[in-house]
């Protein structure tokens, strides 16, 4: 039996490289100062999908939702060995919370697992009821490294909405010229198997009232910078005497026996 496997992945701020610039003075988030990476836990899920495919056959599709730059992790996914990737991008998907995101992903997965099957005298398309949904714990499946061959193959993969910056970085082309070049480039990438498909709300037949901000029951009331209190600790000197003092105080308070 071979499986159609959908892996949901997201871009997250790289928590190991966050600097003090992450917050603007007005308390909002400075997204420009937040480097984005493939969510490490989602790599565990991708690894499980790839393992299932390698063991039992099938196809792994990685789905992410976000602005055009989220295509970065889809390139990564191809380099790890995913068979297909899909970028869900639509202004109406923005500012989604858990509920709105899961609705949108479910609609997209519904499209991924649509299968065309042979019937008497032709084909029919069946939207399979999703048979199994798994969450993968972060401890599972040490992710494999990306493969050099696939890195070479996919480093130029692009989503259509990324193309504008590629063909008209200065934003100077007249609209019809832009359109023409964009079409050419899209065709060229498509021929080379390097075009990352993009689906918007219409493509997944989503009810836009249930997506993004509109579909999100939760609101961020406030986001405070994690400002630290002034240090009020006792200093212990990093010397033998300092350590003796420290041990003595801890023992005196019965913290150490």
């Amino acid at each position, binding site marked *: 039996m071979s499986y159609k496997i959908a892996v949901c992945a997201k871009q997250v*701020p*790289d*928590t*190991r490289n*966050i600097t003090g610039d*992450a*917050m603007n003075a007005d308390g909002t*988030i400075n997204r420009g100062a*937040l480097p984005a990476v493939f969510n*490490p836990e989602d790599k565990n899920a991708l690894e499980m999908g790839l393992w299932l495919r390698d063991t039992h056959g099938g196809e792994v599709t990685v789905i992410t939702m976000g602005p055009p730059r989220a295509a970065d992790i889809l390139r990564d996914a191809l380099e790890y060995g995913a068979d297909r990737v899909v970028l869900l991008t639509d202004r109406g998907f923005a500012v989604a*919370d*858990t*509920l709105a995101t*899961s*609705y949108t992903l479910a609609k997209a997965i519904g499209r991924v697992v649509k299968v065309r099957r042979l019937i008497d005298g032709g084909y029919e398309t069946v939207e399979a009821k999703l*048979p*199994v*949904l798994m*969450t993968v*714990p*972060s*401890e599972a499946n040490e992710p494999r490294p990306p493969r050099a061959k696939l890195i070479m193959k996919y480093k130029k993969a692009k989503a259509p909405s990324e193309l504008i910056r590629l063909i008209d970085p200065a934003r100077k082309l007249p609209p019809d010229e832009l359109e023409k070049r964009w079409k050419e480039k899209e065709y060229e990438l498509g021929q080379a198997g390097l075009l990352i498909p993009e689906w918007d709300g219409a493509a997944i037949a989503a009810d836009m009232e249930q997506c993004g901000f509109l579909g*999100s*029951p*939760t*609101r*961020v*009331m*406030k*986001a*405070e*910078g*994690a400002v*630290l*209190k*002034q*240090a009020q*600790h*006792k*200093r*212990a*000197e*990093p*010397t*033998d005497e*300092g*350590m*003796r003092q*420290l*041990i*003595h*105080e*801890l*023992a005196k*308070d019965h*913290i*150490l*026996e």
Partner: protein
Amino acid sequence: MNDDNKKAVWVVAEQQEGKLAEVGLELLGRARKLAGDIGGAVCAVVAGHNVGGLAKTLIAHGAKKVYLIDDVRLADYTTLPYAKAIADLAKDQGPEIIIFGATMLGRDLAPRVASILRCGLTADCTDLRIGDYTDPNTDRQYKQLLYQIRPAFGGSIIATIVSPERRPQMATVREGVFPLGEPDDSRAGEVVQVHPALTQDEMIAKVLDRVQAEKKVDLKGAQIIISGGAGVGSADNFDLIRDLADVLGGVVGASRAAVDAGFISHDHQVGQTGTTVRPKLYIACGISGQVQHRAGMQESGTIVAVNKDAEAPIFSIAHYGIVGDLNDVIPKLIKAYKSKQ
């Protein structure tokens, strides 16, 4: 909707094989405070088979009402029947708030229940409070909402999240975030038997086999924890942390940075994505003190921080700070402890 329950605060108490997870009891303590603030009652919900004996413990920890969803088909945890049974009960009773432990099981179950009820959910909260909210777009005011407080964006901010319109308001909370209250056997509570309406549609997964993995590291129960961070530098150098733990009779912990760098396995990780601990003594070595790490250990009785960087955020919550190289400080600390005896 049952009027008595309009302002009910529910805790979904996890059990496996008839044993309650401690986090459910911790949450009952906080639920009492929340329920007090909104003038409601604390209810516990427990699902499983032959779980009636658990009601007494839940009542002793503060549940005024215990819903027992008891059914042979719930003997083993599987997502769909548990989610359906709890969501159906919530639709029927209309609680104001539902909180779950952010355990492996709770993280699986809570989003399913939230999505059936079409309501919001904030995962891994580090605090829950009651307060008012004014929608900045509509100026509409909401009284006594659940503030769902958690670190976000790598801990650089603490976000307060509310769910103004939809009910119930839902959150998951990691174990150890709220202290375990003292049980009081004189507390009284009502036990309500619930018969879930399950169909074949929910019974599509079967548990074939169950293997209990021994958890090798008992961070939660440890009185003394010695943790290493990125500053330890290498997997080999973690021996220094182990040595200190051995000498002091403690358990080895680690920050996410140390785990991600491959210095030590994930079951040692303290913090928001690891274990939340509150030992008597916590010694943080080479840990800068990102808010996710602090969220997992700041309730420790006494915190000692060793770091080369005098400006490291860990010092802001430490009781004792040592600015120095851990490679130099730890051997001195070991020597000082040994010479004391």
